């Protein structure tokens, strides 16, 4: 297979022929009768799982089946934040794995995903919050995650447009992860898809899985809108619809889906270089390379799949951010949308074997989906290839039965 490498030189060469000769970033093949592994869901997590199956374990007879267009779910609807300053050990491990893989992703995939470790601040605005973040710093230092606590003066230096003095919630300091940041969300899906395709994997879009076939407690393939496709191993990586797929295979998952609200402003010249999260007042903000302020807030208080924006969270978030960054009052909201987050009982993901032999499930990332993509794919590939992975060990779907929760709500009121 192979792919033509992207580079400045390749673009110069393309210019000579009016860019008429670029090859497809990924092929669009018809499905084969059988694959060693099928991944359902060509979002970031599904594509990353396939990529590492090939790259780390040499399993390349793989199909990634997608109901719509690749990267069209939450991969393309989030606020692109990358951080790993989680509190609990299993979370810190997998998110830091992801963050470290983001560092070299552009080079690994030969696709510029624009990972920008611009730094990420979580503001402490009450004594209680300050204590929580200091705790996170201590935990992170033992977990190998580089974070530190900084005072208000350093916060102001990093974010000149911030209002330190309140009056309602003066900024007492911040949990600072210098190597946290953002990346271009669509590019992550596209880069993985291109790399998977180059390894000979089939990315099959516009194909819906309608049934899961098992024989003697073992998976044999999936029914799709393009017919039956056989497989030895099946990875379900479909976020909010995981419970629907699980039902096809005869088991249940503890997943609820909620709409998470986000918006962008009109583009302006550089105003803020870092990502700022203000959990006491409920809002977070960064600025994209295009110049838009990317703003996120809370989840709706009711379960739904609508992917529509509702307004009350936008209000709450915008108030919080006008208070934190007064100059944004005279900017304008360009677009608002809702992304669907799949939530488990402890707000941590499920990466797990299932009651059906050969079926593995990866879902429940909630508000942490984008930042975890490469780590999730890496771990899921190991789980599918070897049957276990230290990174997924604690994220089993059976933990709810044991009460062995991985609860991060401690560390972040509004998670993102």
């Amino acid at each position: 297979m192979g792919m033509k490498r992207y580079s400045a030189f390749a673009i110069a060469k393309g210019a000579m022929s009016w860019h008429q000769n670029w090859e497809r970033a990924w092929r669009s093949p018809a499905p084969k009768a059988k694959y060693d592994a099928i991944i359902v869901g060509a979002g970031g997590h599904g594509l990353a799982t396939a990529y590492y199956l090939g790259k780390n374990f040499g399993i390349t007879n793989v199909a990634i089946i997608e109901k719509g267009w690749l990267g069209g779910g939450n991969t393309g609807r989030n606020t692109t934040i990358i951080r790993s300053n989680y509190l609990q050990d299993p979370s810190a491990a997998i998110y830091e794995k992801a963050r470290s893989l983001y560092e070299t992703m552009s080079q690994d995939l030969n696709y510029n995903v624009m990972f920008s470790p611009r730094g990420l601040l979580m503001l402490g605005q009450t004594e209680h919050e300050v204590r929580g973040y200091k705790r996170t710093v201590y935990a992170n230092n033992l977990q190998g995650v580089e974070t530190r606590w900084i005072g208000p003066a350093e916060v102001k230096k990093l974010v000149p447009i911030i209002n330190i003095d309140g009056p309602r919630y003066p900024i007492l300091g911040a949990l600072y992860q210098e190597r946290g940041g953002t990346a271009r969300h669509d590019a992550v899906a596209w880069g993985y898809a291109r790399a998977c395709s180059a390894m000979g994997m089939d990315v099959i879009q516009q194909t819906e899985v309608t049934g899961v076939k098992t024989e003697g407690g073992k998976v044999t393939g999936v029914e799709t809108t393009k017919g039956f496709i056989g497989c030895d191993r099946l990875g379900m990586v479909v976020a909010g619809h995981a419970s629907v797929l699980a039902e096809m295979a005869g088991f249940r998952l503890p997943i609820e889906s909620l709409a998470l609200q986000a918006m962008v402003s009109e583009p302006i010249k550089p105003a803020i270089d870092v990502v700022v999260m203000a959990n006491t007042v409920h809002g977070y903000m960064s600025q994209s390379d295009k110049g838009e302020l990317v703003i996120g807030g809370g989840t709706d208080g009711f379960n739904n799949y609508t992917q529509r924006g509702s307004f009350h969270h936008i209000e709450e978030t915008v108030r919080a951010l006008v208070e934190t960054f007064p100059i944004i009052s005279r900017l304008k909201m360009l677009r608002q949308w809702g992304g669907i987050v799949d939530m488990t009982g402890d707000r941590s993901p499920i990466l797990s074997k299932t009651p059906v032999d050969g079926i593995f499930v990866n879902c429940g990332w909630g508000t942490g989906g984008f930042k975890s993509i490469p780590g999730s794919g890496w771990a899921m590939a190991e789980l599918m290839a070897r049957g276990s992975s230290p990174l997924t060990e604690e994220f089993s779907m059976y933990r709810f039965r044991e009460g062995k929760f991985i609860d991060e709500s401690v560390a972040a009121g509004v998670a993102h």
Partner: protein
Amino acid sequence: MSTRLSKGGRLIDRSKPMGFTFNGKRMQGYQGDTLASALLGADQMLVGRSFKYHRPRGIVASGAEEPNALVGLGQGGRFEPNQRVTTTELFDGAVTESQNHWPSLDFDVGAVNDKLYKFFPAGFYYKTFMFPRAAWKHVFEPIVRQSAGLGKVPTARDEDRYEYAYGFADLVIVGGGIAGLTAALSAGRKGQRVWLIEQTAHWGGRAPVDGVEIDGKPADEWVRTAVETLEKMENVTLRLRTMASGLYDHGYLLAYERVADHTPGDGRPRHRLWRMRAGHVMTATGAIERPLSFAGNDVPGVMLASAVRDYVANWAVSPGDRTVIVTNNDDAYRTALTLLEAGLAVPAVIDARPEAKGALPEAVRARGVRVLTGHGVAKVKGAKRVTGVSVCMQAGEGAEIETIACDAIAMSGGWSPVVHLWSHCGGKLTWDEDHAMFRPDPTRPATGADGAAMVTAIGSANGMLRAADAVADAHMAAGSEGTAPKAVSAEEAPMSPVWIMPEGAGPALRMKMWLDYQNDVKVSDVQLAAREGYESVEHTKRYTTLGMATDQGKLSNINGLAVLSDALHQAIPATGTTTFRPPYTPISIGAIAGEARGEIFQPLRKTPMHDWHEVHGAHWEPVGQWRRPYCYLRTGEGVHDAVNREIRAIRNSVGLLDASTLGKIIVKGPDAGRFLDMLYTNMMSTLAVGKCRYGLMCTENGFLSDDGVVARLSEDTWLCHTTTGGAERIHGWMEDWLQCEWWDWKVYTANVTEEYAQVAVAGPNARKVLEKLGGMDVSKDAHGFMEWREGTLGGFRARVYRISFSGELSYEIAVPASEGRAFWDALLAAGEEFGVTPYGTEAMHIMRAEKGFIMIGDETDGTVIPQDLNLQWAISKKKTDYLGKRAQERSYMVSPDRWKLVGLETLDGSVIPDGAYAVADGVNANGQRNMQGRVTSTYYSPTLNKGIAMGLVKHGPDRMGEVLDFPVDDGKVIKARIVDPVFYDKDGEKQNV
């Protein structure tokens, strides 16, 4: 050149000139002008630079669809970037500046990108800037960021104010053109509560400019009469300058009223954001004209044909002296007629259709204008301004036939209904082959809770592009009440879709055909995306940035997806559209925030004693929406000293704490006891009237969520105290269970937190202070520990609880909130001889830690069960169930390896930092250092004169005396010994005296 004509202009008042500046240059317009018409009137066609190539950009449209003409408006606290000049009304003294260039609009260094355009095709940044790795963050990204973005960053705090308002209507009609007015007349006559809102400052929409006649009168006159009629209807509300920004579920409509944008600083709120509930919504939002894709269609001077006639008819501004019309439909000929009537030259009409024989083309021919059918534009001449157009055959590859000198080009590619609002809540579209446009599919509207249509599209927004059809459609949709207005306009022959001009244009021309003017997306870019496999319309949008600019693709989307469909060899409806998201046009963030800023950013809850605290040196701490004194600072005193002073005063004599913020919830009814037994881990139904009991509440997952003292007030009434931050949450939690699960239980709850002022009087002299106040018997015998009594104290009606969170003799006294301040003053006076000391939250926290009492939020964090905190004594063994019980029986919950509560004492007496972890040997499977415990509360104890802490430690209670390592900052390790968590008065003698 562009100029102000000597007469005409239906919207301007020449008797009221207004001065303004553009890039420092003084200019003049008239009242009624938009900034766009005023700029054009002053011959300022070039107004900005594009996003990517920094190409010169001129005004292209006359309304909300304008992609190019954005300026910085105002100064200081009234500066706003990215103001669209076509929708900004001119005001006297306006200061404007162009954007996205350096050093100047005329000479922009960034325009070098344009020379290199061949190297910057769509998505070039995904293919490069990857080496060396660090260069993205340190070199390329800063360059990209600096050259991207549009307007400048505001630097000052906003000087304006904004407000919310609420509206309710049976019917909201969006758009005050002739369709909207017609619908309002019909619905108004039927007696419905109607709101008619219009985003511009004028009623009537396009009809007056397009020469429509209604009921035998010119449109202007009919509109005036219609508005007068509507104004007389009490059930009809009319609002100009009000745009429907978004439609949400259940008829929730957001309308953005620009109250004072045109009269800045007049004291009124700048914007008002209406949150409306609409029984039904009608979108009479009109249609937007599409550009044509020909090489150089972005050169300043190339405008929409409808915009050109708007400028002439509405504001008496001519975009050019010689305007060539390029079209694929009859409507654009109206522009030719308008120009001719104003005495301006129309050298030619270039019509892509093989023939043009309708009434309008014939009228234009009759005026002696050349009409070149079957022709197209090969290329526009000029850089910062159109100087001519070279003409080719539409069917060919662009070979130049002739060049026509001109200084403006009016183009029309047909019209697209404005379907945004229709689509926001799920309304679907259908492809109309005749007009090559998407229009609302009436069989698939957005539906309300009852399953019926929530939205109806009317008029041209419904695809009825002819005035007669639009008016008839609107009248019928609104119930056909009264006589239907009859509109007459010129007949039009069918349009013919033209997506590329000329048809056979090669790559060089296609790289010069703009689709998205602001983001610099060209026909070639969309074709490249398709070639590379970005086939979904969403992929193409995201890969090329088509339609992602501040106009959100109002001009570019349909043209772009037609090009994409062609590249994919599929029909346009098979490609589909991207999602229409609110807002329709951007709305100010200030308006969304409204009045909620500064002190009133959130409601500030104040106890009755709040003002006293303020005057007496309170160092405030926000707790929920309350503010509580952390401590009271005396002159020259630091926080730490104040806290220690307060603690010593209580331990030695007596102190007062304003405990009014504690949650107080009344639970009442025949099933109240049974309900509380389910809610709390303890047994509350057996609590005797007159007694108090400390209770714990857990989530269904078993985790401790709140605690507090419960008092039984009467046979069927309990009063539950919650934490300050927990009151609303716990009240909601109670109602959740009562309304969703135990709806047949007879229990009523009321959150009475703010009904009472509550004061803790704590310390060895507490009783003496109360006795001095006089009234009810507070002696040990009459009022034992964990009992409450009602009576009077110092003449105040009081409910007195003998409970203690400090470990001292303590009374918590509730009085009616209205008497709180007086009671507080009375306590201070009575306590004066004992040196009574008001104390804050920090003293309270430290004293409870000295006593080993847990604090919700410190010892608990959502992962801790009561058993972890050695609180088994507060868990009833008699009960078969309570919320959390079953969860607490799960295997991991009963594991002996869970971390449990202990006290911690540093070997050197120092204070362990908050949040420190105790390490164990080795690392785990993921290479993380093993841990065996953590600090949950840590303080300097002035009572014991050393650091004390509480923490959770693996097997902790079995390891008394062991020393743990807590690595802290800078490689330092603090050693602390595991001890009993009760540091002070272990037997509880002091609180029982």
